[in-house]
């Protein structure tokens, strides 16, 4: 069975279940780049073509804008309402679309077939409700955010990637542990614990990730369900139009990345501050080198240059991102961001500062499976990880020690195990700096 066939079968089953009206909620788990947005747009379009009105909940303004553009293209005859907060500035790509209405008040968008906004904005909408809703990136949404928007709809399709980062709170409090409505858990986790009978579907094919990513990402982060990549060996290729001068570690890691889809540039072991100057420089050098070498990405028959906007640099902490941004000030097109903000994005190549690089300890934050999963699954071609030697030893010295709480489902995959799996694989592509 071809990947396209598998994927279509899964999509049809999801749409059938959603439209059947038998379930108030349908959950779709999707590995990275499995066509989540395509599914959302298709489900919305089919509802609209049936004469229905619906609301869509996404998590960030960027996601909302992406969906709005896609929907406006797919439904040229329908009016799409883009509901926004007061401080939102309409992006240019939205301003160009004739069938998109933007407003801060939902009353001004009553004629729209689809109304779309962030969960934060929906929480302020009162006195309006919809029969149908689609909640996108539902695993990024916190359960209390769903509580605020749930009165707005009758039935909903929840789409998201269970491997991504769990939602986050500045507050540490165990008082709700074990309750099915624990507001700190993800929206989907809470939904399924309160409504155990809801159907859960799975998108089986990742269209984004290259075939080289499957043997790492699938066992590390989707150990029970797995996924396959849409492209096989040889269908994607990374080439450089210029030759590296000399044999620097950076050029060697680029060569490894081109041949295997992975590269691990290992700096000498050292305990450092979070904003490790050498590591930051190394990450910036690798990212810049992709530009300087005139990188070309082939996918099937299509060959395109890897321009700055096709490169992303990811790190765990905001101060690391700020340091990386400063180091890459001469390459402004390159996206530099934290794992949280890179969720849902896609690039040709990514350069990642390993969350455990230079650390003395491995905390729950740094071990979180979702963080590493986001950072290592944004690429279509290759991912280069930069870190200090000793990450394996650090992991061995810090097994997960998270307490287990009564009535709380055990979360898989375990971040410690996922980190070990990824490190074991990366070490096969190690280039010492």
């Amino acid at each position, binding site marked *: 069975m071809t990947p396209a066939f598998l994927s279509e079968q899964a999509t049809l089953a999801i749409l059938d279940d959603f439209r059947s009206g038998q379930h108030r*909620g349908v959950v779709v788990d999707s590995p990275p780049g499995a066509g989540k947005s395509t599914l959302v747009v298709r489900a919305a379009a089919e509802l609209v073509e049936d004469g229905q009105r619906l609301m869509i909940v996404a998590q960030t303004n960027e996601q909302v804008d992406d969906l709005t553009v896609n929907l406006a293209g797919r439904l040229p005859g329908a009016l799409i309402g883009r509901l926004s907060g007061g401080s939102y500035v309409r992006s240019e790509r939205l301003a160009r679309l004739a069938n998109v209405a933007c407003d801060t008040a939902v009353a001004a968008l009553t004629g729209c077939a689809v109304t779309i906004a962030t969960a*934060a904005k929906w*929480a302020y909408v009162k006195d309006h409700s919809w029969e149908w809703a689609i909640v996108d990136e539902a695993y990024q949404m916190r359960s209390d955010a*769903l509580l605020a928007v749930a009165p707005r709809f009758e039935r909903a399709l929840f789409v998201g990637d269970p491997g991504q980062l769990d939602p986050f709170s500045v507050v540490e409090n165990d008082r709700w542990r074990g*309750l099915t*409505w624990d*507001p700190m858990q993800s*929206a989907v986790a809470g939904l399924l614990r309160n409504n155990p009978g809801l159907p859960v579907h799975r998108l089986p094919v990742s269209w984004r990730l290259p075939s080289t990513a499957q043997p790492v990402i699938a066992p590390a982060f989707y150990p029970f369900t797995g996924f396959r990549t849409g492209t096989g060996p040889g269908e994607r290729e990374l080439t450089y139009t210029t030759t590296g001068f000399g044999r620097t570690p950076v050029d060697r890691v680029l060569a490894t990345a081109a041949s295997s889809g992975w590269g691990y540039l290992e700096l000498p072991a050292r305990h450092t501050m979070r904003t490790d100057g050498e590591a930051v420089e190394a990450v910036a050098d690798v990212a810049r080198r992709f530009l300087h070498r005139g990188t070309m990405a082939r996918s099937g028959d299509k060959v395109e240059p890897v321009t700055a906007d096709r490169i992303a640099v990811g790190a765990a902490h905001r101060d690391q991102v*700020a340091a990386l941004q400063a180091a890459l000030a001469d390459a402004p097109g390159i996206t530099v961001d934290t794992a949280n903000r890179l969720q849902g994005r896609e690039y040709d190549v990514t350069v990642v500062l390993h969350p455990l690089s230079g650390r003395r300890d491995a905390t729950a934050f740094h071990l979180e499976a979702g963080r590493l999963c986001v950072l290592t699954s944004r690429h279509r071609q290759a991912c280069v990880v930069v870190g200090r030697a000793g990450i394996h030893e650090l992991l061995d010295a810090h097994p997960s020690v998270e307490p287990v709480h009564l009535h709380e489902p055990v979360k898989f995959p375990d971040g410690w195990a996922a980190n070990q799996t990824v490190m074991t694989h990366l070490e096969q592509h190690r280039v010492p700096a």
Partner: protein
Amino acid sequence: MSAISSYARALAVDGGRAFPIATRRHVHIAGEPLVLIPLTMAGEANAPLAAMVGTRRDDPALLIVPQPRNRDLRFAFADELAAVVLRYVEDRTRQGIETYGKNQDPRYLDAPQLLVPNPGGVGFVRLFGRSTRFRRTTGEYAVSPDVPLLGRWLSFLAERAEHPGSSALLPMTSALNLHWATGQSSLEDTNLAATLGWITSGPDAAREAEDPTVWPPAGPSTDPTFDNEILAPALRQWDEGRHERARALLDRDLRTQLEPTWRLMWQAIDLLRALPAGDSVDARWTEDRNEFTSYYMYVNSGGYPQPRRDQAVAAARRLQRLEREQTAFDATLALDDPLVMANYRVTGEAFAGTVVESEPDRKVPGDKGRRVLRPLLVVRSDDPLRLTVGTDVVSPGRRKQVAKILEIDGDRVTLQIEKGMTVAPTPAVGEEITYTSVFPEGMQSPKLPTAEDTPWTHGGPPQPYVASDDDAREVWE
């Protein structure tokens, strides 16, 4: 751990003395705090063994349970503790009352403050509150009417302790660790004797604190050797019917376990009182007074005991509030204290420098075409700045005056004052000033559905609470 506190810990190890990480006191210490040192019996879930409690350092009351496995004796202890706590709570209301706000809401001038030695003490208060607040005062297993009331007040204080910035129930070690970095691990930091040792004399004192014969554990757990060699024989006396003898033994021996910690508690209070209070401490204590006033009135009007667990809507609402308070607490701590602000200067979220240019009368075209006052200033700073153009910042001395970063050029930061030009003059050339993006904004939280409208995604509306005898029966036997 922040860079500053990591560095301070290194300095503490190097210098053999705790190193200050705050220049101001960030907790409120009441004029008359109630100090409570609880002890529990090993092997029994939160079974009280003894407590030393009081508001005056020279007059502690010692309460003991001569056989902690006997529930009637436990609730007799609860009754004795209730007498102390309820009188203390009542006394707070006698300090006077004021009104505030548009609606002239009442607010007591004082509020209860319970000080316990360590986070374990907070856990004891929470669990003991839970085990007493549902007790019935009639019928089977009846307890004194004060016991369920004690349970409510202990539960109230334990719930307040979850709120960032509240000083209603403070574990002393946490209060000290907010102000001093020691050269020991964070686990060792929960040992009151060791932490005070680092602050007042150095690591030798901290090492001595590990000896349970010199410094008995500050509770709620007792030292196992004490349990085996002293406590067990005394309890046996009780079990064999020699009650007088048992009480006399326990009274003597438990006093030796509690008195050293009692002295440490007051020593810690003195240390904290010696620090000048941060500017926002009073406002945070006012919030404690507000909460006390409304709970006092709720209890007096015959309200229910606190529910065992939050329902879906209540949980979400509480989380929103805790998050708001945490953000505000973190920000005001830094604005109150330059040493805390240094953390943000290290991470690039704040910068300090000298004003090198200032245009207090600058006007720019506003939205409606009129020219509006937007003073401009340029600050030269050597800090590693990681703020971006367009970020709003405030200065500790000018919290209501919001400036926006217009340009960053090397070590020169150009700022435009956006709000609050009149609350303070524009900083003048030559002035030393700190700006930070970390400040308590008027964070809004969306309205959540009411409990009766809990949506299907969260299990639908909960069953309304009906008080019943089952509440009390739960855990007696």
